C-alpha cells in the first residue's frame, strides 16, 4: 500500500512536469497536442545518453535539450508560419512515435544503472516537480512577465499594443514547455521505469494534455489532478495490490483512459463550462497575425 503511494507520487511527477510545461505554453496561447511525442523523444534520448555515458545528469540534459528543440520547432510552425497548431502538434507526435521506435529499439531493455538515490524514499524528480509547480504559479500570477504571458494567450493584439513582444513570449513559453515535456519523458525512462520499450508511454502524454484542460490552467489544481490521475494509473498497472482477483488485468488497464474521458466530459458540460471553462485562454490555438 505504501509502495502504491510512493509509486503514485513518482507517476504524478511525470504527468505534472509535462502538463506544467503545456500549461505555460497554453497560457501564452499555443496548444501543443503532440505533447506525448515530445515526452517520447525526451525519454528515449535521455535513456540512450544515460546508458552510453553512464551519467544521469547528461541523460536529463539530453531530454531537456530535445524537448526544447521540438518545442521550438512547434513554435516556428505555429508562431512564425502561423500554421495550424493541431497539424504541427500531431506531426510532432507521429514523428516522435515513429523515430523513437527506430532509434530506441537497439536499446530495448533495462537501463542497467544504479537507481537514482531517493531522498526520503522519493525520487528527486518528485521534489523538483513540486518546486516547479510553486515557481510556475508565482511566475504566472504574481509577476510582470506572467501577466504578459497570460495576456498573450488571452488577447495577443492587446498585449502587442501594450509593448509586449507576443511572438517572443510565445516562443519562450512553447520552448520551455517542450523542455519540461522532455524532462517528463526523462523522468519516466530514468527514474520511474528505467526500461526502454517501444511506445513506452502508451498514453501518458495525452492524459497530461487532458489534465491541463482539467486544471483551469492553474498549477496547483494541476498538481492535485495529477496526483489523482497518477494514483489511478498506478492502480491500473497493479490492481492486485488493492483489489486482487477482480476483473482481468487488461480491463484494469483501461481505467485511466475511461476516467479521462469521463472527467473531460464532465468539465465540458454547460454547468462546468460557465464556471470551469472561463479560465481557458481566449486566444488558445489561434495563430496571431500582427496588423
Amino acid at each position, binding site marked *: 500500500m505504501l509502495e502504491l503511494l510512493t509509486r503514485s507520487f513518482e507517476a504524478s511527477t511525470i504527468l505534472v512536469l509535462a502538463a506544467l510545461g503545456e500549461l505555460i505554453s497554453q497560457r501564452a496561447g499555443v496548444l501543443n497536442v503532440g505533447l506525448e511525442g515530445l515526452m517520447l523523444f525526451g525519454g528515449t534520448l535521455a535513456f540512450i545518453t544515460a546508458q552510453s555515458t553512464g551519467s544521469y545528469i547528461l541523460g536529463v540534459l539530453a531530454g531537456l535539450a530535445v524537448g526544447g528543440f521540438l518545442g521550438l520547432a512547434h513554435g516556428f510552425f505555429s508562431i512564425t508560419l502561423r500554421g495550424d497548431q493541431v497539424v*504541427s502538434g500531431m506531426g510532432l507526435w507521429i514523428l516522435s512515435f*515513429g523515430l523513437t521506435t527506430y532509434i530506441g529499439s537497439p536499446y530495448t531493455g533495462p537501463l542497467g544503472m544504479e537507481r537514482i538515490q531517493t531522498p526520503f524514499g522519493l525520487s528527486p524528480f518528485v521534489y523538483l516537480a513540486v518546486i516547479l509547480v510553486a515557481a510556475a504559479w508565482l511566475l504566472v500570477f504574481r509577476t510582470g512577465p506572467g501577466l504578459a504571458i497570460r495576456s498573450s494567450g488571452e488577447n495577443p493584439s492587446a498585449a502587442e499594443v501594450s509593448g509586449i513582444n507576443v511572438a517572443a513570449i510565445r516562443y519562450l513559453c512553447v520552448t520551455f514547455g517542450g523542455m519540461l515535456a522532455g524532462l517528463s519523458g526523462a523522468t519516466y525512462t530514468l527514474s520511474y521505469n528505467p526500461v526502454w520499450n517501444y*511506445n513506452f508511454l502508451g498514453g501518458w502524454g495525452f492524459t497530461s494534455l487532458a489534465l491541463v484542460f482539467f486544471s483551469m490552467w492553474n498549477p496547483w489544481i494541476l498538481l492535485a489532478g495529477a496526483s489523482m490521475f497518477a494514483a489511478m494509473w498506478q492502480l491500473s498497472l497493479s490492481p492486485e495490490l488493492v483489489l486482487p482477483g477482480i476483473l482481468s488485468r487488461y480491463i484494469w488497464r483501461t481505467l485511466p*483512459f475511461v476516467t479521462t474521458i469521463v472527467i473531460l466530459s464532465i468539465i465540458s458540460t454547460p454547468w462546468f463550462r460557465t464556471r470551469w471553462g472561463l479560465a481557458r485562454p481566449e486566444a488558445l490555438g489561434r495563430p496571431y497575425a500582427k496588423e
Partner: protein
Amino acid sequence: MRLGRYTLTLEPRPTLSPLHAVLTAILAIFVALALSSVIFLRSELGALSAYRVIFSYAFANPNGLFTTVHRAIFLLFCTFAFLVPLRAGLWNIGLPGQVYAGALAAFAVPFALQAHEAPSPLLPPGLTVLAMVLAAAVAGAALAAFAGILWAKLHVNEILVTMMLNSILFWFVSYMIKEGGPYMGATAEGESFLLPDALRAPTVLGVPFTAMLAVGAAALLDLFFAKTTLGYKIRAFGLNPAASRYAGINPVTLPVLVFVLGGAFAGLAGYHNFAAIPGLYKISGNYGYYGDLAFYGIISGLIARGGAAAIPVVLLFAGLSLGARLVQGQLHLPFGVDYALLGLLMMTFVPFLILYRFRIALRLAPKALPQISADVPKA
C-alpha cells in the same frame, strides 16, 4: 533574413493552385525518402540499393505485390476514416481503436453463431460473411460516433477522446484474445480463434473483395464531396462552423455523421486486415502493430486530401512499410524502420503543408533608418 542589400522573407501566397499542392506533396515524399536513406547508409548495401530492394520486393515480386496490395487496401480504408472527419475540421486519430472495434465485431458474428467451431445451422456462410462486414462497419462507426457525440454535444476535444478510445480498445482486445479471453484460440496463446474456411472473405485473383469496396469508396468519396449537398455541408462546416450554423447546417448531427462515416471505414479496415487478408484470418497477437500502421492513414489523408488521390499514396506507403521490414531483416537494421519512415514522412510533410502557403521573396532592403534614442530631446 538579411543578405547584403536584400532581405529574404516568407510571404503568404495570394492564391493556391491545386497543381502546386500536388507538387508539394510529391516533393515532400521525395525529401522524406532522401532523409530515410540516412538509415540505410549505415548498412553496407548503400541507400540506392536498399531502395531497389524495397521497391523490387514491394512491386515486382509476386508475393510482395500481393502483400502490398492487401496492406494498401487496409491503409486506404484508414485514410478515408481520417479524411472524412478532417473535411469537417475534426481529427479522428482513433483509427487503431476503430480498427480493433471492427475486427472484434466481425469476429463476434461467428462467435455468437458458434460458427467458429462448426458450420452454423442458423446462417449460411455467405450471409455470415456479409454480417461480419456489416458488424465491423457498425462497430467502428459506433466507437467513432461516441467521440463525435461528445464533441458535438459538449465540445470535448476529439483528439483526446479518440486517443483514449485507442488505448481502451487496445487493452480490450488483449482481454478478448489473451489469458482465457472469450476469443482465445484453441491452440495458440494470445491469439483469437482462426476463421473457418467458409467464413473467409472471398477473393478475386487472390485479392479479397474488400478491394472493390475500397476502390469504389475512393471514387464515390470524390463525387460525394464535389457534387452532393451533404458533401457541401461537410466542407462548409470544416471551413467555418459559425457560418455553416448560420446557414442552417445542424451543428450536432453533422459532426456525428462524419465520425460515423469515418468510423465505418476504419471498421472495414479492421475487417479487411483480420478477416479478409489471405494467410491471417485471426486477430493475431501482434494486432498492435496493425493499429500503429493505421496511423499511416493520417499522413496519407493529409497528403492526398481526396479519395482517388489517396490510391497511389497508400500503394507507395504500403510498399515502403513492407519493403522496409524486409530490408530491416536483410541489412540487420534495428527494428522499426517502417516506424522511422512514418515519422520521417510526417517530419517532412508537415513543414511542407505549412510552408507551401508561403513563398520566399527576395527584396531590396529599405535603407537603414537611425534607431530612436530613449531620450526625447527638449522642444
